[in-house]
């Protein structure tokens, strides 16, 4: 791929805006609350788009297109079954406690609701996780730019890290949020023409279905395996994902999606920066509207690519192979960009891709500096200092966080397996977390000891299940079965879903049992933290579209319609 002057001009223009926003916001950063929480001043729609964008990192754009190619439209389960209900649940039921408790972070809520040790467990694992995910994101970007444009890995990593560092250092969370809004629109406007041109090329939806039916039958599935969703989920062997309806609904829909969208501070932080309780609750629901349509933006390109590849003789399009001979699905979006975009548009598409990498990175860095400064530094290292001190610590932490991410990117570059193992470890920590929050927010009897030991056992249960099971065709090791493979799953995805189900159930049951055996907290200490002891927000005289409840119901209804349309 060769860039022309126009492509560079677009890229440079974007970078000027990114840094300009940081610079323009610098003078508004007067207190640590401005820096870490945007002074709780962000309008609902801005918080909503940032909420969505923080998750629109490399994994989302590159990974969802890759899954679209690999598994077809069933990938949309991650949206219509997974994300949408969880985002609506967060807005309607959980946001009142996150926002209303005045906690400054998700770990801090755990401290207010439970105790110090539960907070510490969550804060430390979360902080480590953000650094490594940001590092992996950077590593993926460096690799991709090297492959596509021949850019040097080191230059790519350092330039993007420096840009992200500068705009967060200057403008804090507000700067990250504003840039996420820009990134959101860039990604939409950068990838929409790709889908349009691709669909034109393959002969519209009918042409795509025909090509994908060939893909399905040539791989031993029924014709609709790539273009239908639920109708192919009766048996794990009927779809390329290798999961059946129960695993999808429970593992992905209930445990994994709710665990991520409702408890991950990376996204929740955006909603917590909103300017009112009502805005904070509407933010994730507003985000759910575009999220619902994202399968058409990020999954469809993958389906188009694999359809084109099926008829490679006439289309001339093929995804490159990896060193081991398997298809490199991760290159779906970049290869389509090269195929369809002329210079000019190519610059826009590339900018959108870079924007997605940077939004993922920035989300991790802002979440890291808040959790580090408030939940670790202020709590265990130095409490009682002046606000200016913590603002300074936040800025320094931004530098440290970005530097550690760069280091992590280099670690990933040299020891791929270490990063796989770390990601695995974090998956164990995250899997049971939603049970803790669910009980914490809706059962006043849940105690600190119950939460902590429930969480710990859930994590151990996840690790045990992983160590005792193996996806088909894998060898024991990072993929599982490192204790002894007594259970076998048709795919890695099925194994993941079941790991999550075991972890959640263990944490849920043990938290209840241990809570009942330990001394409950005084009810007056739990006001504002637990559903039954908190006054419901008043919404008299607010039109339906301004109220989270009806808005959320409308969003869930719409995503149900989409599910049925593509049943």
């Amino acid at each position, binding site marked *: 791929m060769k860039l022309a002057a126009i492509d560079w001009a*677009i890229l440079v223009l974007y970078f000027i805006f990114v840094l300009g926003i940081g610079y323009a916001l610098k003078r508004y950063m007067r207190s640590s609350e401005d820096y870490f929480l945007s*002074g*709780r*001043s*962000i309008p609902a729609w801005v918080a909503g788009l940032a909420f969505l964008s923080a998750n629109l990192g490399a994994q989302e754009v590159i990974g969802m297109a890759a899954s679209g190619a690999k598994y077809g439209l069933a990938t949309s389960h991650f949206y219509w079954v997974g994300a949408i209900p969880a985002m609506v649940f967060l807005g309607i039921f959980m946001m009142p406690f996150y926002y209303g408790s005045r906690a400054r972070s998700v770990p801090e809520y755990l401290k207010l609701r439970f105790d110090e040790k539960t907070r510490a467990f969550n804060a430390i694992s979360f902080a480590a996780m953000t650094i490594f995910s940001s590092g992996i994101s950077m590593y993926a970007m460096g690799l991709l730019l090297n492959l596509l444009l021949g850019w040097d890995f080191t230059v790519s990593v350092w330039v993007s890290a420096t840009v992200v560092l500068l705009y967060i250092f200057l403008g804090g969370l507000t700067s990250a949020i504003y840039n996420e809004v820009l990134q959101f629109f860039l990604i939409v406007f950068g990838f929409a*023409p790709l889908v349009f041109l691709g669909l*034109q*090329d393959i002969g519209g939806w009918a042409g795509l279905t025909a090509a994908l039916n060939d893909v399905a039958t040539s791989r031993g599935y029924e014709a609709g395996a790539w273009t239908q969703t639920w109708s192919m989920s009766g048996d794990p062997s009927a779809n390329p994902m290798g999961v059946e309806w129960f695993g999808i609904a429970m593992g992905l829909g209930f445990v994994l999606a709710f665990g991520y969208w409702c408890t991950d501070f990376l996204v929740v932080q955006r909603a917590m920066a909103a300017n009112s309780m009502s805005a904070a609750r509407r933010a994730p629901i507003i985000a759910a509207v575009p999220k619902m349509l994202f399968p058409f933006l990020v999954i469809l390109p993958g389906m188009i690519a694999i359809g084109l590849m099926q008829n490679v003789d006439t*289309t001339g399009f093929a995804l490159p192979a990896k060193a081991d001979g398997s298809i490199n699905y991760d290159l779906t979006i970049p290869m389509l960009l090269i195929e369809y975009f002329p*210079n000019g548009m190519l610059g826009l598409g590339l900018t959108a891709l870079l924007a997605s990498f940077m939004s993922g990175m920035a989300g991790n860095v802002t979440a890291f500096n808040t959790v580090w400064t408030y939940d670790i530094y202020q709590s265990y290292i130095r409490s009682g200092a002046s606000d200016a001190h913590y603002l300074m610590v936040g800025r320094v932490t931004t530098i440290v966080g970005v530097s550690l991410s760069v280091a992590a990117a280099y670690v990933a570059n040299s020891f791929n397996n270490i990063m796989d193992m770390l990601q695995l470890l974090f998956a164990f920590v995250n899997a049971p977390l939603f049970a803790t929050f669910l009980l914490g927010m809706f059962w006043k009897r849940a105690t600190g000891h119950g939460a902590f030991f429930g969480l710990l056992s859930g994590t151990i249960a996840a690790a045990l299940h992983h160590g005792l099971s193996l996806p088909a065709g894998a060898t024991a090791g990072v993929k599982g079965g490192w204790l002894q493979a007594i259970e076998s799953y048709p795919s890695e995805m099925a194994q993941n879903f079941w790991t999550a189900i075991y972890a959640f159930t263990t944490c849920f049951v043990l938290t209840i049992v241990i809570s009942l055996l330990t001394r409950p907290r005084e009810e007056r200490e739990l006001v504002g933290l637990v559903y039954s002891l908190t006054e419901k927000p008043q919404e008299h005289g607010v039109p339906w579209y301004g109220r989270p409840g009806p808005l959320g119901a409308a969003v869930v209804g719409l995503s149900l319609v989409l599910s049925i349309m593509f049943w």
Partner: protein
Amino acid sequence: MSQPAGLDVRWPLGLLFVLLGALLLGYGLLLEPTQATAFTGEPPGMQVAADVINMTWGAVLLLFGAVVLYLARRGRRGSTQP
């Protein structure tokens, strides 16, 4: 409602898209239609020329940016009134 963040995000958003749109539109107009041949290898039934797609999408971005700037201006007027 608490203190607004000081800078309405719609200003940079609108401005960025107006400039991006102008760049693409201008570039599309400058391209010679003859030399701007189809850019894909051998696509059946699709020959979108580079000048057309740059111009069209440039115009779309420009329009989007202009609408956002208009909304930002209206928002500012709204906030100065009591």
